[in-house]
């Protein structure tokens, strides 16, 4: 087929004399015909749907006198009562987004802002917010809240708007998922084309390193094509990230020469770009995550070294099956919020992983402050353990030895310490006073911890791991060494007559010195002894961990009308989400995919509208999706201290959304010490 035509040409120095524009356009046309060639259905589908991008009404209150956040004086349009969302949904497009941008710039002192929800003025502000929201809805009236499609639902719960693919030809969600979404490495070009999402990692010489789908033979056939897209960008080689959209496909390329990371998508919500450029778009972040993983296991300098003078170097030589599995798992979770292996025997729903990448922040383990403080204290104490002086034969030394002067710290090279619960939740974090790891680096570390966790699940052997890891932001050219130990709390509380399921916690201690495993092991023993040796602490912790596994809006917060929410504390860059099960009462792949769809749209609606200074803005936004059987409302509130996103049933009244959302936000702020670890604890 056509692929070979492109492949036959030497792609690197072809067409030097051609105009840049011509060349690029030429290539891109080829690409589009590649993917769409012989797929007339796809083409006609795009035309059939004729969906324009979502409508945005953006109102800027920059010039309005503000004396409170959310309050724009003189802006109370006379909306009577609280209109139901449903009343407003009466037209035929794919969902609409409406936004208010409230720029209060420097008018409000920061202290007022941050205490805003805590003080007695809360109700007053709530009123204003209600007004504003109704105003928003009223203004949106002309663009209407829209119905998506008239297709038969046939019991399918997947949002039809995920792609341009006509879902009528699939007889169930799982049929659609199997053909369009699930990983497949088999040698079937048709199936390969069918997939909504592709990731490729390749070398500058066009050697494939990783592909999410397709057999090796199939993928090699595409490398020429991809390198020709890349070479059409070569004119601006200094730019790290490039994207191109044609018809129903978007391609983003991250240039990390000598490697290229490519994402190709037909998923509509992945088309949006960020106001900070493609790098911060969904696809840009996904590619960065893959890149970071590769750097974390190999280091940037060793990747560069491998390819120096050997453009044909095959990087796969230094990758293990586990690495490829991790790539697969990242690609799936970043795109769809779940991972399942090819034959679908094992799958793992992991909305939190998706959320953490979407919000670019970290998830912490929910825990009472008292318990966390005790664990923090242990981590801090562990850093202070002194090394005992080896015995000298001259016993006179005993008399001259002062208690402290001859003793040095057991592990001066220990840089960071983490205690985590599974699913990458941080319980406690220790770092030097003057140095903190970036969110990126912590994510890389947590991924590695998860990877180890997974390998341990199948075995009862208690082992200590000593793992070299490159933290891309901390030092992309070298490795730190991580001591890792997983303990099962259920074994320790069993002696107290308490029965709980397998409750692993991980002790991860990071050392700058590869040779001091045994010193760090000693520190870990101290930490484990302190945690498990105290009956009260081990029970407290076991109790917290078994109870806090998921956060139920209806039970923990008693706000059942909000079905799901995510709250991110901006200061600490940490987030919490409620249990994904609450959204519909159960959870499966389709529901996770829908959550990913809703939140991706909602998240990207922040960037709609013309905004100059986003950081000083408070924004309010909502989305209304009318689906064949029901409708869903997404609501978002961005404040200088936090970001809040939620989903609820379509028939909720606008006032209920505001009231309940503010209650949730207040709850999150009130319990922030339980929900977040903040800056962690330090040593100097």
């Amino acid at each position, binding site marked *: 087929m056509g692929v070979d035509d492109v492949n036959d040409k030497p792609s690197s120095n072809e067409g030097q004399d051609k105009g840049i524009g011509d060349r690029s356009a030429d290539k891109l046309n080829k690409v589009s015909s590649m993917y769409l060639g012989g797929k007339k259905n796809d083409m006609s589908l795009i035309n059939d749907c004729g969906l324009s991008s979502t409508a945005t009404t953006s109102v800027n209150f920059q010039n309005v006198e503000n004396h409170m956040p959310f309050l724009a004086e003189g802006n109370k349009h006379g909306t009577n009562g609280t209109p139901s969302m449903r009343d407003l949904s009466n037209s035929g497009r794919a969902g609409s987004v409406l936004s208010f941008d409230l720029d209060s710039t420097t008018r409000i002192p920061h202290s007022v802002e941050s205490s805003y929800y805590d003080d007695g003025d809360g109700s007053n502000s709530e009123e204003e917010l209600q007004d504003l929201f109704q105003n928003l809805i009223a203004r949106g009236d002309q663009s209407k809240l829209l119905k998506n499609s008239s297709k038969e639902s046939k019991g399918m719960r997947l949002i039809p708007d995920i792609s341009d693919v006509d879902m009528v030809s699939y007889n169930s969600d799982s049929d659609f998922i199997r053909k369009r979404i699930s990983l497949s490495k088999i040698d079937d070009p048709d199936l390969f084309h069918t997939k909504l999402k592709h990731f490729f990692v390749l070398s500058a010489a066009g050697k494939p390193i990783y592909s999410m789908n397709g057999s090796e033979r199939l993928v090699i056939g595409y490398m020429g094509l991809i390198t020709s897209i890349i070479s059409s960008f070569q004119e601006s080689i200094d730019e790290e990230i490039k994207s191109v959209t044609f018809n129903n496909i978007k391609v983003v390329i991250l240039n990390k020469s000598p490697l290229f990371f490519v994402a190709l998508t037909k998923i509509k919500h992945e088309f949006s770009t960020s106001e900070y450029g493609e790098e911060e778009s969904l696809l840009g972040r996904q590619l960065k995550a893959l890149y970071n993983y590769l750097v974390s296991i190999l280091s940037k300098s060793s990747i560069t070294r491998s390819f120096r003078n050997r453009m044909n170097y095959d990087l796969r030589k*230094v990758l293990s099956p586990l*690495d490829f599995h991790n790539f697969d798992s990242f690609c799936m979770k970043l795109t769809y919020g779940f991972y399942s292996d090819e034959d679908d025997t094992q799958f793992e729903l992991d909305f939190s992983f998706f959320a953490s990448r979407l919000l670019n922040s970290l998830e912490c383990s929910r825990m009472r402050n008292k318990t966390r403080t005790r664990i923090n204290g242990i981590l801090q104490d562990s850093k202070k353990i002194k090394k005992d002086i080896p015995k000298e034969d001259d016993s006179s030394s005993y008399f001259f*030895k002062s208690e402290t002067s001859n003793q040095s710290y057991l592990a001066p090279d220990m840089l960071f310490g983490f205690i985590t619960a599974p699913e990458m939740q941080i319980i406690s974090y220790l770092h030097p006073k003057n140095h903190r790891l970036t969110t990126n680096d912590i994510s890389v570390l947590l991924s590695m911890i998860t990877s180890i966790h997974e*390998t341990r699940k199948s075995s009862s052997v208690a082992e200590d791991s000593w793992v*070299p890891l490159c933290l891309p932001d901390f030092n992309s050219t070298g490795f730190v060494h991580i001591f890792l130990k997983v303990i099962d709390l259920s074994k320790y509380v069993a002696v107290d007559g308490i029965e709980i399921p397998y409750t692993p916690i991980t002790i991860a201690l990071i050392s700058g010195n590869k040779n001091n495993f045994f010193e760090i092991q000693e520190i870990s023993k101290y930490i484990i002894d302190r945690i498990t040796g105290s009956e009260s602490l081990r029970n407290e912790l076991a109790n917290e961990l078994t109870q806090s596994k998921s956060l139920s809006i209806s039970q923990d917060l008693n706000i059942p009308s909000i079905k799901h929410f995510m709250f991110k504390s901006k200061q600490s860059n940490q987030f919490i989400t409620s249990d994904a099960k609450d959204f519909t009462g159960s959870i499966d792949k389709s529901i996770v995919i829908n959550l990913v769809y809703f939140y991706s749209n909602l998240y990207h609606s922040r960037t709609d509208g013309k905004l100059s200074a986003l950081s000083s803005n408070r924004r309010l936004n909502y989305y209304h999706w009318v689906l064949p059987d029901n409708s869903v409302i997404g609501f978002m509130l961005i404040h200088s201290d936090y970001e809040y996103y939620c989903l609820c049933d379509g028939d909720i009244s606008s006032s209920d959304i505001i009231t309940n959302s503010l209650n949730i936000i207040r709850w999150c702020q009130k319990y922030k010490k339980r929900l977040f670890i903040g800056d962690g604890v330090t040593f100097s």
Partner: protein
Amino acid sequence: MDGERIPGYKVVILGDTSVGKTSLVHRFLKNEFNEHTANTIGAAFITVDHNSNVNPNKRVRLEIWDTAGQERYRSLTPMYYRNAKAALVCFDLSSVDTFEKAQYWLEQLSLNSSSEDTKKYIVGTKSDKIAEAEEIDHVKDRLDDTAVIFETSAKTGQGINQLFDKLVDDVDEQIFDEFNKRCEEELRRESENSMINVLSKTVHNKYSCC
């Protein structure tokens, strides 16, 4: 020191990726086998007390380093076999190519002066996957006559206990002698310490030996 006083015995497990090193250790420790063992990242450290069947009084604390065979960890591996008392050099009987890597590690061990005293055990893994012993003969040709190949299978358990029993049987008596001497020394000093009534209680430095 934890509980019973028995000498430590450092054992390193070497060999190409996926030959079955981790599976071997897990079969030995817990009598378990998993078709989907994940690759080791870096190295894993496990301690276990073991005595030989022949002489139940001969008991050591095996300090096992299960190393990652993936090529990218190669430069880190010497730190695990340095001062090891025994090395299990593994290759996959059903994939004789992996013997090249085993031979590489055997060479490295003999080149490295600190590993001169390291006892080397050549371990063929996954014996359940080969029908006949022909392949092994091919490998044997490349070894000197004295070399023994332990044929094992983590899947069936074949040869695994025998291997570790042999490992403990082979432990030099000298190690026990030295260990006992050190213990006596320590006891003597502890009683001295209490007589001198020093301010600080000093404990023998556990790391100096590693």
